Each structure stands twice: as structure tokens, then as C-alpha cells.
């Protein structure tokens, strides 16, 4: 698809453009967090319980005198990092399994789909909590836990794409010319099934950020990484005295996830134009 055509379709969705602008602002905040807030976000910056708009803390300070604004900026890094890496890991698991199931069909398909169904039945947040708690919280365990509970929808999607593309002429032609299965999967079918996968992946980044924030809200975040969920979880007991400690990090999550969902819908309109029109 031509680039300009893609952008025109994307820009027709006003929500998607708004989402992209918000997302750009958040990426900027994350990239320049150390420049904007050079001090460690865990360090005391001012007196505890400072309300918003006070002298040293624009968004107030928490019960240990840490700057809320600094926490939000540094937390943006963790959220985006975990959102992207865990989606990449989920893609690796889901697309591989889905591609194998859809391409080979028969018993392989049956076995893989049973496995997928098992993971879809398991309450995924509970499994994520169990995994992170048992393997002790760190960025790596959090990313892996989120990937392990998030891949099934991607596997289903990839399988459906592969099932339908496998019977098409260009794949049949590739088979008759004697290309290996790996080549056919990676070079013939995969490139043609990318657009729905990209759309789902962009929405999954949003879900992964929500999952990470929920884990760190429960105290299962990486103890060295400041994150939005942790800030809300820590401030929850003093919400009666200090609303700002929970309100601002929460708004940061809502804005980020909303922006990602809007961008995802825009991508959907631009990459799957037929689908977008039929949805009306």
C-alpha cells in the first residue's frame, strides 16, 4: 500500500490523529524524563503531603515528599517499555503457534488449539499475579508474565489468517516450486497476514500497560522502577487526605491507554479499509 494513501486513511479518523498527538507527548515525556526531572524519582524532593501547584512540586508530593510529576515522567518510561516488550514477546509466542496451527492443520492444529483454549480459560490476571509473585517481581518477570497471559488472541488471529491464505494460488505456487515450509511461512504467508496482526498488537500494547499498572498496584512491580500503578497503590490508603497522589498517575494511565486504543482504531481503518467501511 502507498504511504500517502495510508496516511490519508489514517487521518480521516480524527480520534486516531488525536491519539497520535497524545502518544507523541507521552513518548516525549518518557524520552526526556531524566532531563526534565534530573533527580531520582524515589528521592525526597520536598515536604511530604504538598498539594498540587505548590512551590517545588507542580502536581504535589506524596507521603514521603517525592515529586508526583517526576514519578509520572519516569513512570512513563516503565509503562511504555513494558508495554512494547511484552507485546513483542506475546507476538513471538502467539504468531509462531498460530502460524504452525494454521499452516499444518490436522493434528498439529488440534493440539495447539487445545493448548490455546486452556490459556484462554485460565483467569489471566490471576496467572500473571501468581507468576510474578513466585518468580519475584522484576522487569523481566513482569514482561514474561504479561506475554504468557496475552498471546492466545494473537495465536487465534494468526491461525485464521494462515488457514485462509494457505489455500490461495500464490501459496500453492510456492509449494509446487519446492520452497520449504519455513520459507513459505515466513516469506509468503506472513507478510500477507501482517495488517490484522499489527492492529491487534497496537491494541495489545494498551492492554499490557493496564496489566503492568494493575500488577504494580498490588505491589508486584519492579522495586527499582517507578511506575504509575505503584504510585496509585502506595497512595490508596491516604486518599482521604491526599487525592492528588492517586488522581494524577491514574490520569496518566487513562490518557496513554486511550491514545493507544485510538491509534489502534485508526490503524484498523487504514490497514483494513474494507472492514472499516462495513463496520459503518
Amino acid at each position, binding site marked *: 500500500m502507498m504511504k500517502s494513501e495510508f496516511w490519508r486513511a489514517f487521518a480521516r479518523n480524527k480520534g486516531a490523529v488525536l491519539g497520535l498527538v497524545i502518544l507523541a507527548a507521552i513518548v516525549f515525556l518518557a524520552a526526556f524524563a531524566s532531563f526534565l526531572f534530573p533527580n531520582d524519582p524515589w528521592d525526597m524532593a520536598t515536604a511530604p503531603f504538598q498539594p498540587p501547584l505548590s512551590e517545588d512540586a507542580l502536581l504535589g508530593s506524596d507521603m514521603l515528599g517525592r515529586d508526583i510529576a517526576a514519578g509520572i515522567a519516569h513512570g512513563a518510561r516503565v509503562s511504555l517499555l513494558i508495554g512494547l516488550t511484552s507485546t513483542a514477546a506475546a507476538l513471538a509466542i502467539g504468531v509462531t503457534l498460530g502460524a504452525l496451527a494454521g499452516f499444518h492443520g490436522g493434528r498439529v492444529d488440534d493440539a495447539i488449539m487445545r493448548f490455546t*483454549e*486452556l490459556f*484462554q*480459560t*485460565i*483467569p*489471566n*490476571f*490471576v*496467572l500473571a*499475579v*501468581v*507468576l510474578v*509473585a*513466585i*518468580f*519475584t517481581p522484576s522487569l523481566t518477570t513482569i514482561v514474561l508474565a504479561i506475554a504468557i497471559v496475552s498471546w492466545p488472541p494473537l495465536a487465534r488471529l494468526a491461525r485464521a489468517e494462515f488457514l485462509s491464505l494457505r489455500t490461495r494460488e500464490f501459496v500453492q505456487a510456492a509449494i509446487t516450486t519446492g520452497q520449504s515450509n519455513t520459507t513459505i511461512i515466513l516469506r509468503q504467508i506472513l507478510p500477507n497476514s501482517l495488517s490484522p496482526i499489527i492492529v491487534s498488537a497496537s491494541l495489545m500494547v*494498551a492492554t499490557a500497560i*493496564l496489566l503492568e*499498572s*494493575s500488577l504494580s*498496584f*498490588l*505491589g*508486584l512491580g519492579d522495586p527499582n522502577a517507578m511506575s504509575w*500503578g505503584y504510585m*496509585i497503590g502506595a497512595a*490508596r490508603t491516604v*486518599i*482521604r487526605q491526599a*487525592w492528588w497522589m*492517586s*488522581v494524577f498517575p*491514574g490520569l496518566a*494511565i*487513562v490518557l496513554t*491507554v*486511550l491514545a493507544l*486504543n*485510538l491509534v489502534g482504531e485508526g490503524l484498523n481503518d487504514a490497514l483494513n479499509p474494507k472492514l472499516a467501511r462495513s*463496520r*459503518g
Partner: protein
Amino acid sequence: MLGFAQIFASRLVKAAVILIAIVVMNFFLVHAAPGDPAMVMAGEAGAADEKFVAQLREQFGLDRPILEQLGTYVGKVVQGDLGFSYRQQRPVWDILAERLPATLVLTLTAFLLALALGVALGTLAAVTVGTWADSAITVVALLAYATPIYWIGLMLSLLFSIQLGWLPAFGYETVGAGYTGLAHVADVGKHLILPVITLALFYMASYARLTRASMLEVRGLDFIKTAKAKGLSQGRIVTRHVLRNAILPVITVAGIQAGQLVGGSILIETVFAWPGIGRLAFEAVLQRDYQVLLGIFLVTSIMVILFNILTDILYGLVDPRIQVSQ
């Protein structure tokens, strides 16, 4: 009715397979965890006393080959023995059984509320498509998708209990009030309102969107034109013809999302100090009480399977064809 019984039986077989897989998974989690499995089972590595750890080692045959250990473990779980919480000095099953009713009340109420309100709002949006009511419902759904449920819970309690003082912010009942009979039910109900609304909100939004899309699709089908041609009233067409068909995908998705709903109760119960399994999960995480945590994993999986069976039954009630065709 034979068809339905068969579906039900195959459902049960599937459920049993899934449960055994989860038990096996639990076993391997304990063994894959860093450190000695006996220590992991005792929880809070190092804090448990020697005698207890030695007893665990013997009980689970931890010096035996791994497959034999797996057999011992599965055998114990099948008999309802989910282990012993060293931290609470009680069998895990007793702790879970005590907390289960509160979680069931919370999740079931939220599930039914989300389904009823979601379908109602989705219908409203589809009937008024293109008007302000339709847009408002779409915007609310978008926001509900993007907001972490624990934060919605905190904000609702900030507004309705701290600012306005209308509803209790936490707990299951008013401590020390000593209500009995109807007064007690009303008291618990009052405590239930905020957690249920918080938990239901996301799913309500999701079902509303689905109902809307599905109704708009069904509305254009031929049998609706026939119904119109027969001269049926608008209201009757919407409720008896469009909705009845449009609701089927909603029920399917509701079944798929049951797992998320049950998982969400961990967060909701933590926010509102609701004394159920979810709150217990939070406490178990804090205390690193893995036996309790794995027990919760098993019990919540069973809950999801029950929710799935419930949605199957709902599906059969709405669409009687399923009894003969599948």
C-alpha cells in the same frame, strides 16, 4: 433435550481436562520457582521452621522422582487437599471456602448487571444510531476501556463515600452494628454497590458496544424486512426479532471474558476491602504465601469454567436451535 445433555456432558469432560492441566501447571510452578520446593510451599523462604519444612518434604515425597511427586500432588488435590498455609496455620481449602461466598456474590452480581445494562444501553445506542445518545454511549465505552478498574474504584469511593458520604467505602458490613435479618441484607447490599458498579463498568461498556454493532448488522437482514412487511410494531421487532438474534455474540463474548471478570475481582476486592478470594490473593502476595496463591489460581479457574457453563445455558435459552443442531 438429548442434544443439550450431550453438550453439557462434553463440556464437563473438557472442564475436567482443563482442571487437571491447571493442577499440573501448579505443580511445575512450585518446582520452577527459585529455591527449594519445600521452602516455596512453606512460603516466606527462611521464616518457616525446620520441622515444618521437613514434614512437607516427607509428605510430598520431595526426594522421589519428579513424576512420582506429581502423582502424589495431583492425588492430594483431587481429594480436596490444597495444602497447608503455614502463615495462617490452617488448611488452604478452609481459608478459601470461607472467602468464596463473598467473591461469588460480587462477581455474579457484577456479571448479571453488566450483561443487563450493557445490552440495554447497546440497544438504545442502536435504536438511536447517529444521535447524541449513541455518541455518548460510544464515548463512555471508549473511556471505560482505557481506565484501570482499580482506579475507577478509588475515584468512585473518593466521590461517593469521602466527598458525598452516601455509601460505605470499604468492607462487607458495618462492623459492630449487629444488624439481623433484612437490616443485615440491606447493610451488605449497601456495601456491595460500589464494588459491583466498578467491576461491572468495563464489561457493561464492552457488551454495549457489541450489542450495538450486532444489532445494526441484524437489522439489515431479510427476516427483519419480512417482520416489517407483516406489520409488526417497531418495539416488537426490536425486542423479539433483532435483539434476540443480536444478543448471541454478546453471550459468547461474555463467556470468554469471564476469566477477566474473575481476575478483576482481585483488584476490586483490594480497593474496597471486600473479604473474598481476591482480597485473600492480595494478602497472600504480601505474605508470599504461595500455597494459598496456587489454591486461589485453581479455585478461580473453576469459577471461570462455571461461568462458561452458565453462559452456555443462557445461550441455549435464547437460541433453542442449539439443542438440535450441535
